[in-house]
């Protein structure tokens, strides 16, 4: 799997390159600035881009802007955005085109190598990887009055949280130490309570849930 990596801090870039290479990814470019990233994305057609939000030369949200621009040119280009902080505002912008293949994680998540590598694979396959903090922000607010979300049982809420992060039923089952069938039952309950259409496609399912949560706020 061919990866373009953009990270301006040498130590982190080096660490990520080593980690991804060790897990069988091919790093076709490891760049440290916005313009370089833009060039790499349009010339190398990677399977997935792993991008730091803040890059030189402006040290603002260069990485995010490059990723969004590249996706406008190549819709659905899988991008995993890393940052020292996560904002629902940015998640919304990343998800806005509804094409999937989006990841948005705190840099800390690389500590858990297995989960991080899983997230990169998921995004490359057109799936979603949303940071738990983003999901918590989405779920934390009460939008005044009665909300479908409030009708979920605590267990269903837990499942919803993991689902919104982009996990598959199998992944959720493993995390919560239950059978996949139990999770399937929970998910169909959740979809019924939220009034969403059930879909077998994992990716579309996640996007529908995220859109619902964002709308509900």
């Amino acid at each position, binding site marked *: 799997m061919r990866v373009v990596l953009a990270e301006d801090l040498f130590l982190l870039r080096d660490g990520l390159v080593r980690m991804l290479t060790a897990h069988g990814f091919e790093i076709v470019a490891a760049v440290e600035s916005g313009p370089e990233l833009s060039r790499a994305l349009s010339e190398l057609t990677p399977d997935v881009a792993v991008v730091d*939000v*803040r890059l030189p030369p402006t*040290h*603002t*949200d260069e990485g995010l802007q490059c990723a969004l621009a590249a996706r406008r040119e190549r819709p659905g280009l899988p991008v995993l955005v890393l*940052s*020292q*902080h996560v*904002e*629902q*505002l940015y998640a919304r912008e990343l998800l806005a085109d509804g094409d999937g293949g989006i990841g948005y994680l705190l*840099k*800390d998540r690389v*500590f858990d190598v297995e989960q991080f590598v899983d997230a990169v694979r998921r995004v490359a396959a057109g799936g979603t990887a949303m940071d738990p903090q983003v999901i918590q*922000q989405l779920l*934390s*607010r*009460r*939008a*005044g009055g009665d909300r479908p979300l409030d009708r979920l049982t605590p267990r269903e809420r837990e499942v919803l949280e993991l689902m919104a992060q982009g996990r598959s039923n199998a992944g959720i089952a493993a995390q919560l130490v239950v059978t996949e069938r139990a999770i399937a039952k929970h998910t169909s309950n959740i979809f019924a309570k939220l009034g969403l259409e059930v879909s077998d496609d994992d990716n579309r399912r996640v996007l529908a849930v995220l859109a619902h949560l964002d709308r509900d*706020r």
Partner: protein
Amino acid sequence: MDTDTKRDGFRATAREALLAGVQGLVLAVVVLPCGVAFFALTLISLALIPVGIGLVTTPAVLTGVRALADARRRLAAQWCGIRIPAVYRPLPPGANPWTRTAALLRDPQVRRDVLWLPVDMTAGFFTALAPAVLVFFPIQGFLVAAGLWRANVRGPGDVYWYAFVPVTGQVSALGAAALGAVILAVGRRRTPSLLAAHFRLARTVIGAPDAALAERVRVLTETRQDAVDTSAAELRRIERDLHDGAQARLVAMGMDLGTIEMLVEQDPAQAKKLIAQARRNSAEALEELRDLVRGIHPPVLAERGLGDAVRALALRLPLPAEVTVELPGRADAPVESAAYFAVTEVLTNAVKHSGADRIWADVHHTGGRLRITVTDNGRGGAVTGAGSGLAGVERRLGTFDGVLAVSSPAGGPTMVTMEIPCVLS
């Protein structure tokens, strides 16, 4: 209709003239005794300084002089709309009699007040008396014509002088009345401006020539002190947070790694446990650093500017908040930061205390000012007084000549408006 208006106009000017006459009379009656008394007291008090008594009496007497001058300033504003600016230096707190007296005597405003006393009891007295004379002297002329002359002119050869008119009989008494009428006619138009002349004279002597500048200096001194205090407190907080948080966690991690190095061969299971602990520590250190950074300068603010930072902030609130932004550019970083933290505080206040279930924030820039409005549909009753969070916001904005206004009637809604003069780039 036309004559009615004319009559109304005549009545109005007549009433004004009469009022100015009475006011002038009151001033003249009060001015002379008070001025003389305070001038004498001041001189005596100053003369007694070498013996020591003056040190105690001078501050008291000068306070009286100031009260007299302040009273005149108030009357000038109330009666004639003339503003007499005053800039007194603040007295050093807890000063002894000697430093108090010295500080008072060094204050140019106090000196001006003292010098004004002799001017006020001479020229001031006459300028105050003039309007009264213009109003009341004609009355005497009419009374003379009406028969009062008989009391003074008892036989031929007796002359009663009404101004320059020698009254010797009814005919010349009528002349006195005519003069009175002329004076009255002039006075009806001139009395108010004569009274104003009295206050203008006072302004020339006791008005602070550089009041606006002095006020500006006072505000700057105050806000600079606030800014220095705030930033010192911030630095202390950051130091403490780092010391007790991230730094301590890194120390713990280092220790764990040392132990792991020792254990890795003898007790791999225990070593593994410690590795997990070290990782947890590093994650927590990162979390703490993230919170700290958010408190110093939020990353969204650095990356996107004020508009998106407020939007991101609104998304973190536990209440629905609508944000409208209209900023054609970015303000200077310090202004952005001050504005952001002000909005944070106001929004937090609204969430905590207002009981609102909806909040609106509006950020825009017009006429060289950044204007931010935060409205909630809560119960109202928010105050800016000392100790409230809003007072802190006001101080913070003050550094940038920013202002804060609160409209919060009981029952709501509450609207907090903040304005900072700035240019966008």
